Structure formats: structure tokens, C-alpha cells
């Protein structure tokens, strides 16, 4: 039952790890039974209530040397196979496919470095299932908290190298079924790899505390056949081209607001709420000094974050321009002005 044990292994590394663990459990259980067998024997036989008299011996060099050396030997026997797995885990060269996984507060971004496109992968479990403060909320789905809008897609039987990094704080890219867990460290690149042996959908969760929604940034990998992967790749590349915001497009205010509302709903609504009134430690945007004050300050805070507010520098210039324009012209805010992608670009410097 996978509730008691590891998730079924999908890579040879994961299998090695599980075998190591099983072997270790055997050793440990044997030692445990021996050691506590002796102890409980003493507890049941050598007790005062049975009239047992104490024998006041208090040292025995032979025994003491033995119980120092034997455990040391057992450890060597455990360390040897473990070391081999460590070396295998670290050997990420020769990968066929390299994907950069970037942690954001609080979702993942994947860039297919060899194919020149990327996308974000976000939790889709609705808030109405999650928030049960006042009532039991909506019924929780089968993949509650483990479902995303767009999983990472990789081909089966292919060595895939994952480069991890982060946009803000440390996250960790973990896929238990693959035997993979690699921290994503802002400003640095780390790597790990896997070679999935079966097609299917596999799920993991961010495994390093990264702030309020640490529990809400799952990792989903869809392993597909090599052919399916090719088809998907082609589709994805075409889509990416079409969807890319044309950098030369001239935006109108209303277009920006419409676009911004989507961005807001995808990113900001969890804290600042749909009505922009915020709540708890999250300030209201409605009538706020920043959302009605100078544009520069507004752009700055979105780019850099402040206290509980993370940096949103991971969004594109267009997205930031749009969402700021939306915020300045909604919830009763009526600045009437708007921010263009090029303003954001300039502010990033």
C-alpha cells in the first residue's frame, strides 16, 4: 500500500533508493530485535521483585571493543552500495533533453532550453475546495492540491536533465517517483536528472518552505511516448510563437485592463482578493496609496515585492503593465492612466 511506503519507483535511481531502504530496514530491524531482545530479557528476568541479586561487574574490554567494531563494520556494508547510488545520482552528463525549472512564489516555470519556449505551471485546485474556514467548502477532487494547468511534459526512456533555479526564495523541485529532489536556489543553477521508464502522470510538491503558498505549488510531470512528445513539442512551439505578445504591439488602455484582469485573477487574487480589499496582512488595493499614487512606485513594488508581497519580476513586461493598469482602474480606483510594457522594461533596468 503506497500509503505506508514510497510511491512506486519509475526510474532506476528510485528503484535503487528503494532497494537501499529495504536493505537498511532489514539491518535495522535485526539490530533492533537483538538489542532490545537482550534488554527486555534483562527487564523480565533481572528484577528485584523476582529476588534477582545484582552482579556488580562494570567493565569488559573484549565486549566493549566488539560492540564498537561490529557496528562500524555494519556501517561499511551499508555505506558501500549507498555511495554507488550517490555517484549515479550526480552523473547528469549525456542528457538528451535539458529543461530549466524555475521556482516562483508560488508556481513553477519550465523552459525547454533546446527548443526555445517555456511556460508556467500553476495549481488549478479552486480556492473554494481549499478554504474551509466557514463551511466545508466544495468537495475535494481526486488530485486535490496535486493538479496543475500545464504539467511538465517529457518523453519516456530519455535522460532528462533538470536545471533548477529560482526567481525569489529557495524552492525545491521534487518528484518522489523518480527519486529526485533538488533545491532551486535564487541566483544559482543546480542540476539533477531522471530517465522515466513508463508513461503516465506523476506528482510531487515543492519541498522547501517558500512562504505562504509553499503547500500550494505542486509539480506534475507527464511522461509520454517519444512520438507523442514530438507532436506535443511541435504544437507547443507553434503556440508559443502565436501567443507571444508582439513587442511592437501598441496597447490601448482597455486592452491592457482586459488583459490585466486575467493576470490579476491568476496571480494576485489569492491575497488581495477579487474585490481588491485584501485581508489580514494583505493590504487593500482599493484606494491604496500605491495603486492610486505615482505609476513608478506601483511598478517598483510589483517588481521587487515588499514584506509578504513577493517580487513578480517573473511575469512578462506586458503582463506587469497590464495588471498594473487593471489595478489602477478597478475596485473604485480611477487614476485613468496606464502603464506600457516599455515602461516596465525600463524600470527593470
Amino acid at each position: 500500500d503506497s500509503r505506508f511506503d514510497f510511491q512506486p519507483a519509475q526510474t532506476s535511481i528510485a528503484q535503487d533508493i528503494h532497494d537501499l531502504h529495504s536493505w537498511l530496514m532489514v539491518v535495522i530491524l535485526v539490530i533492533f530485535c537483538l538489542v532490545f531482545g537482550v534488554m527486555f530479557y534483562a527487564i523480565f528476568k533481572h528484577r528485584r521483585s523476582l529476588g534477582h541479586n545484582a552482579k556488580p561487574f562494570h567493565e569488559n574490554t573484549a565486549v566493549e571493543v566488539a560492540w564498537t567494531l561490529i557496528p562500524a563494520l555494519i556501517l561499511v556494508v551499508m555505506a558501500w552500495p549507498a555511495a554507488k547510488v550517490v555517484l549515479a545520482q550526480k552523473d547528469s552528463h549525456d542528457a538528451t533533453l535539458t529543461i530549466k525549472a524555475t521556482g516562483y512564489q508560488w508556481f513553477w516555470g519550465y523552459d525547454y532550453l533546446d527548443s526555445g519556449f517555456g511556460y508556467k505551471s500553476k495549481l488549478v485546485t479552486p480556492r473554494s475546495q481549499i478554504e474551509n474556514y466557514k463551511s466545508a467548502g466544495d468537495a475535494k477532487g481526486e488530485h486535490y492540491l496535486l493538479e496543475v494547468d500545464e504539467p511538465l511534459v517529457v518523453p519516456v526512456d530519455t535522460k532528462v536533465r533538470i536545471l533548477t533555479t529560482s526567481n525569489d526564495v529557495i524552492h525545491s523541485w521534487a518528484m518522489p517517483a523518480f527519486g529526485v529532489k533538488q533545491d532551486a536556489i535564487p541566483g544559482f543553477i543546480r542540476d539533477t536528472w531522471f530517465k522515466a521508464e513508463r508513461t503516465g502522470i506523476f506528482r510531487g510538491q515543492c519541498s522547501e518552505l517558500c512562504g505562504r503558498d509553499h503547500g500550494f505549488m505542486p509539480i506534475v510531470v507527464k511522461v509520454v511516448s517519444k512520438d507523442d512528445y514530438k507532436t506535443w513539442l511541435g504544437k507547443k512551439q507553434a503556440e508559443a510563437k502565436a501567443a507571444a505578445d508582439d513587442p511592437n504591439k501598441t496597447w490601448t488602455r482597455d486592452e491592457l485592463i482586459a488583459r490585466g484582469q486575467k493576470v490579476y485573477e491568476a496571480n494576485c487574487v489569492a491575497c488581495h482578493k477579487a474585490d481588491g480589499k485584501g485581508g489580514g496582512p494583505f493590504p487593500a488595493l482599493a484606494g491604496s496609496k500605491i495603486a492610486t499614487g505615482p505609476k513608478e512606485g506601483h511598478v517598483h513594488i510589483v517588481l521587487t515585492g515588499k514584506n509578504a508581497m513577493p517580487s513578480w519580476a517573473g511575469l512578462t513586461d506586458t503582463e506587469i503593465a497590464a495588471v498594473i493598469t487593471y489595478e489602477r482602474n478597478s475596485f473604485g480606483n480611477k487614476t485613468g492612466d496606464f502603464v506600457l510594457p516599455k515602461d516596465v522594461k525600463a524600470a527593470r533596468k
Partner: protein
Amino acid sequence: MNVENGIHDPHYFVPAPSRWPIVGSIALFCMGMGAAFWMNDVGAGKYVLLTGFAILIWMIFGWFGDVIREAQAGQYGTQVDHSLRWGMSWFIFSEVMFFAAFFGALFYARVISVPELGFFSHTHDLLWHNFNAVWPTSTGPKVDPYQPMEAFGLPAINTAILLTSGATLTWAHWGLVEGKRDHLKIGLAITVLLGLSFLTLQAIEYHHAWTEMSLHLASGAYGATFYMLTGFHGMHVLVGTIMLITMLGRALRGHFTPKHHFGFEAAAWYWHFVDVVWLILFVFVYWL
């Protein structure tokens, strides 16, 4: 020292209940709270911090005053003397470890993080390919350029000053042990003057660095380790100098005997410790 079968004072001195510790706690509480408010721009923070500091000074005067009075009254027997020696030694050990943390940061930046960002690894290739670094850095991936510090100017003079001060202090100690009170007083006075000159030169150096070399706390890992290491060292020199001034005052009042002068020795140990830290600093922060 009293290890296996040493001294057993029949009446080990146990001080009377004292108000100073709780005063010190209140002081540090105010300082912690005040500093937290101040750093976050909350109204009265600065004043709470200063009040706490004032209380701390009061506590130090009161507490050490008691200690000096007890010492002069001859209440510290041999076993107490040994305790004080152990205590001071372990305190200095803790200080060593405090500096070790910052030296660790320095070595880590030099050996691991700056090279990784600056010229090898995927990190460099993918994220910071415009950043080329050798130690000492004169820029960071994303910080304003600055000039790293030269070793053979003021820092070298300061090294000479501190080394000399170690010698003059030892000379003063000999004077004390041999009963030559004038040696003691003159030696201490010179040491204090050297300590003050060190501090003055360091202040000049900082001013120069800050205004003319654009070297700030925010100047990357170099600026951070430079200011934090030399800054904490400077604070220790300041404390050491104050300790020595106190000892000078006590010497002038006729305290200490050739056999009993642990207060003096403690200050001297501390001074030598500060000296050694500087040497390591000089080598790894300024020179190499």
C-alpha cells in the same frame, strides 16, 4: 590550574544577591526591541534603543564596580582566581568562534560563491555570463563598482601599531610583576594611546573608503565581509581600549599587587586576542 587535586577554598566566595543582572536584562531587552522598531522605522525605536544602551552602561559601571570592590577587599581567594581564569579563557574562545563565522563567510565567498558566479559553472554560463570576477572583486553581478582596499597603506601602519601595543602591554605587565609601578603606568598609558591611534586611523580609512573608493556595506560580498570583519574587530579594539583605560585608572589608584592582578591580566589576554584577530584579518582581508 586546579584540575586533579587542586585548591579547595574552605569558603569559596559566593556573591550576595545583586540587582545588576536584571538591570542588564532590561537594558538588552530595550535595545533589542528598540533596534527592531528603529530598523523598521517605527516611531520611538531609536529612543528605546538609546535608553537601553544608557541602562547598559549604568549596569556595567555598577557591576564592575562591585567586582573591583570585592577584589580589593580580598574576597577572591585562589580558587576564585582560578575560576576567573577559566571563565575568561572560555569567553575568549567564544569570541574566536564568533569571528570564525565571519571568516567562514569570507572564505566561502572567495573560494565558492564568487568563482561560481564569476567564471565557471552553469550558474555563470546561464545567469551571470557578463560577470567576471577575481578576488578582490571590484564589482558584483548587480552592485555598483567600487575599489577594493589596499593592504600597504594605513592597514600596514595599523598592524605595526597593534603589534607594538602588544609589546608595550607585556612590558607593563612585567613592571607590575616586578613591583615597578612606574613601568606599569607608563606601559599601560602607551598601550592605551596606541589603541586610540589605531581607532583613529581606522576611522580615517573608513571615511576614505566610503567617500572616495565607493566602498560601502552594499558593495557585494567584498564590501560586506570587509566592513563586518574590520568593523567587529574595531569594536573589540574599542572595548579592549576601554578595559585598558579602566586598568590604567586602577593602577593609578594603587590597585593590583604583583601576585593579585587578574583584572589586569584579563584585559591583557583580551588585548592579545584582538591583536591576533587583526593579524589574520590583515592577511586575508587586506593582503592576499
